[in-house]
């Protein structure tokens, strides 16, 4: 008589094992088919193939084991600390560009750091090119973000050393066209165009503000500016409608 815990007769075990293997194969093939379908039909995440070779923020993403968002949150807290420490002490922001690059590579859809980082880089860091690069990186990752478009416009609008009104106006216009755009985007676009000297476009933009704004004060303002622009165009005295705006400067104490 065989022991109750020993193996049953061999053929039966083999049958059960064969059945189990067959089931594993069928289910496994099904799972592989589904995951292949998922990789082709679901939206792709950012490509990371090259990341293993670069000691940058991008390499941290696979190293975060699927918790890149949490890693980005921790990096955000660290970035704010870094900014605060140097803002309070030596006003040297040598690693700021790298810190925000790491952070935004970990979480490309996290919009706050693009805005904060860009303004800190442009103003305290005195590196406008890096600030612009960071914002463009954000817009590339979030092309439907009206907030980023508006903030990039504003970054150009207050560019230290000299406003870039044309660039500012272009981004404000884009922000105004995007769904969920800030209500002031149209007014900023019209203002920037007007003072950049593009009176015809400014006229159209102010007219748009007058027609679409729900704010009566804004509609009044648009009405006044349209009158001023029409007069300037009619009389040929463009300067009557264009103000000489002050040059933004950053004073760090």
């Amino acid at each position: 008589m065989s022991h109750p815990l020993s193996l049953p007769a061999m053929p039966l075990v083999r049958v059960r094992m064969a059945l189990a293997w067959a089931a594993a194969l069928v289910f496994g093939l099904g799972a592989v088919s589904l995951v292949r379908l998922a990789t082709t039909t679901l939206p792709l995440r950012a490509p990371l193939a090259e990341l293993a070779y670069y000691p940058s923020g991008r390499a941290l993403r696979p190293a975060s084991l699927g918790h890149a968002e949490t890693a980005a949150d921790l990096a955000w807290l660290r970035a704010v600390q870094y900014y605060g420490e140097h803002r309070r002490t030596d006003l040297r922001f040598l690693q700021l560009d790298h810190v925000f690059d790491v952070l935004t590579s970990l979480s490309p859809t996290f919009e706050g750091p693009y805005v904060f980082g860009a303004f800190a880089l442009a103003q305290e860091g005195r590196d406008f090119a890096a600030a612009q690069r960071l914002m463009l990186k954000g817009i590339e990752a979030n092309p439907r973000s009206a907030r980023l478009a508006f903030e990039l416009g504003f970054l150009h609008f207050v560019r230290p050393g000299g406003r870039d009104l044309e660039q500012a106006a272009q981004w404000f216009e884009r922000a105004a066209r995007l769904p969920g755009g800030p209500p002031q985007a149209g007014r900023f676009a019209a203002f920037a165009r007007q003072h950049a000297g593009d009176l015809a476009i400014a006229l159209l933009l102010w007219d748009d503000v007058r027609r679409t704004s729900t704010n009566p004060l804004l509609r009044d303002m648009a009405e006044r500016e349209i009158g001023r622009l029409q007069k300037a165009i009619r009389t040929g005295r463009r300067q009557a409608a264009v103000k000489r705006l002050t040059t933004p400067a950053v004073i760090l104490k």
Partner: protein
Amino acid sequence: MNTLLIAQNTFREAVRDRVLTGILVGGLVLLALTRVGSALAMGEDLRLTVDLGLSSISLLGLLVILLVGTSLVAKEIERKTIFNLLSRPLPRPVYLIGKWAGLTGALALVALVLGTALSLLVCVLGSSHHVPAIAQATYLAVLELSLLTSLAVLFSALSTPVLSALYTLGFFLAGQWCDDLRRLASHLPGGVREGVALIADVLPNLPLFNMRSLAAAGDMTGLAHLGLATGYAVLYCACVLALASAAFESRDFK
């Protein structure tokens, strides 16, 4: 019926385990701690809470699997309680499926408690529109944990608790890099590419269960994603449990 009985028993055992209670309390404390960190978050405190809350569901669940799941079968063998079960007319696959279902149930309970606590916290913060996204992300986390539990049951049926924990952890790490591996494969030459792609197919595709970045922004995922992830989790678990059954059938406890 037998599967249900074993699942109920495993569930009860897991819920009574102090590890589970400790982890649950730890998760709630972590959630409360995110509010302390919010003062440093420069207006991104809600995102911080949602991210850390969802990550804690997934990571603490993994910890439960490593501490409890990997010794599910080995503990019964060590205590010799398995002899009482397997000497009855109970098919061995039923025993394994019951163990898996019981622990998955316990993990779903942990995820439900933590997910509900996170949703309540988010509602208190005035962002109740994040709740559907949190519910979806919690559901996907449960699927991910059920898949990892099936791997833990497989290794537990084959090996010692320590080795099972190491193997399960290894599969978790490799599973997280699955998408990267697949992209890397596309840059490799012919034969190697097929080999690497095959490895990526065999590993559990855990990024499929990750929608934390969407949930952090309050965005929901589509039904296609949820459907594919559910189907994949069911098939992958079935495949791993079938493999575990094949290995367990041939195991002699004499």
